């Protein structure tokens, strides 16, 4: 047993030390049994800190941007060539999308199909990054005052980033899809096979609850299935990178680095997703 000496000499202090350790353990167990117990305390603290974080985060972001732009100056020519090529390719996609859109419209007309509520996007700034090695969530500067609700999907331009886990008045926490506690109902886009995407703190979350005879292949796209909560179906999530004994792994399209702004999808319970402006898929 380690000797707890000088500053913890008195009995009262030793008692306080042990008592506080016990408190910490108790809080952990209660929080594990019912995560909602401390939700109010959590949101109040984050509401309090968010304006401060917001104020600090902006000059830091500006400095980072200056460095970024200086780096980009050196790569202008290459970047330009790459963008021209990409632009040419996207133009083809655009015409394909327009064709599909008009075909889709005609088919909907034939079916007398009624589109439901449109989707609304909320844009928020990331003010708190992932803290520490074993936690994957971020803090944003919009809360219930800005229309943020628990369960909303969080997107970056490339795809699904996570979902809103808790909401304060002017802050909210987004649990990233790679987090240990993240479970997202998804499907394989090509085959419509349903599964759950389960994070485990690694870069590549796992597909679980795949039916036994389902066949999946490397390179297949994974999108949200829209089952369960207020998630719209069809949001791009990632691509299968590994199929093996160790399970099926998915590489997310959304990068968790350099997050500055994210979009939250405000999606009525019975709504349907209107195609996002960037979403041209096969």
């Amino acid at each position: 047993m380690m000797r707890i000496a000088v500053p913890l000499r008195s009995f009262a202090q030793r008692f306080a030390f042990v008592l506080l350790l016990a408190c910490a353990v108790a809080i952990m167990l209660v929080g594990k049994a019912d995560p909602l117990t401390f939700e109010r305390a959590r949101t109040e603290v984050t509401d309090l800190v968010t304006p401060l974080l917001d104020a600090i985060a902006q000059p830091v972001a500006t400095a980072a941007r200056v460095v970024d732009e200086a780096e980009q100056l050196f790569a202008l020519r290459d970047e330009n060539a790459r963008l021209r090529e990409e632009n040419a390719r996207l133009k083809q996609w655009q015409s394909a999308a327009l064709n599909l859109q008009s075909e889709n419209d005609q088919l909907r007309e034939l079916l007398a199909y009624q589109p439901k509520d449109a989707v609304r996007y909320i844009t928020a700034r990331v003010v708190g990054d992932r803290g520490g090695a074993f936690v994957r969530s971020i803090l944003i500067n919009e809360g219930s005052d800005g229309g943020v609700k628990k369960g909303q999907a969080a997107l970056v331009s490339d795809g699904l980033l996570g979902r809103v886990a808790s909401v304060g008045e002017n802050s909210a926490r987004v649990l990233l899809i790679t987090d240990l506690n993240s479970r997202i109902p998804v499907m394989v886009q090509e085959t419509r096979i349903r599964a759950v995407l389960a994070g485990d703190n690694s870069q590549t979350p796992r597909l679980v609850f795949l039916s036994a005879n389902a066949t999946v292949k490397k390179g297949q796209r994974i999108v949200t299935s829209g089952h369960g909560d207020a998630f719209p179906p069809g949001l791009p999530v990632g691509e299968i990178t590994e199929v093996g004994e160790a399970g099926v792994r998915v590489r997310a399209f959304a990068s968790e680095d350099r997050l500055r702004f994210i979009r939250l999808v405000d999606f009525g319970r019975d709504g349907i997703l209107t195609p996002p402006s960037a979403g041209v898929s096969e």
Partner: protein
Amino acid sequence: MQMTLLQRLDLYLRFSLPVALTILLAILGVVPLHAPSYAPVAPMLVLASLYYWAIYRPQMMPLILVFLVGLFHDILIGGPLGVNALAYLAAYGLVAGQRRVFLGKSFGVVWWGFMLVAGAVEALRWILISALGGTVLDPLPGFFTYVSSVGVYPLLSLLFSSVHKLIPMPEH
């Protein structure tokens, strides 16, 4: 000699510097730096601060505040509540109890002590978060965090010792 109100206020402010600095470091620790792959390996700033004050001025950092700083940090990073509170308390109690080992020793000895404590704290976090999550997490990110923390400690130590100079010694 009686102190004026202003002098007393000044003294209280100086005495609260260690706690204020630790809270500030907790907040700064989550500011997005927009650097690729930085966040998962970000150093343990709060632990470095607690370690320093546990050795040099434990009177300025009562246990209850260590506990509260830990809870605050848990909330700030959105992790399971109580993990950092427990880890910081245990580390602080241990270091404050053994502070004679480090007091008046060369910086190398203090740094070596931090290596041990930071390793123990990161291992404890890994065990607790794995247990609460009901799975075995990949310990590698924790190792990177540990290495970056140990690497940054000398710089932080400079910051702490310059703040330390602002705090008058107690009169006895």
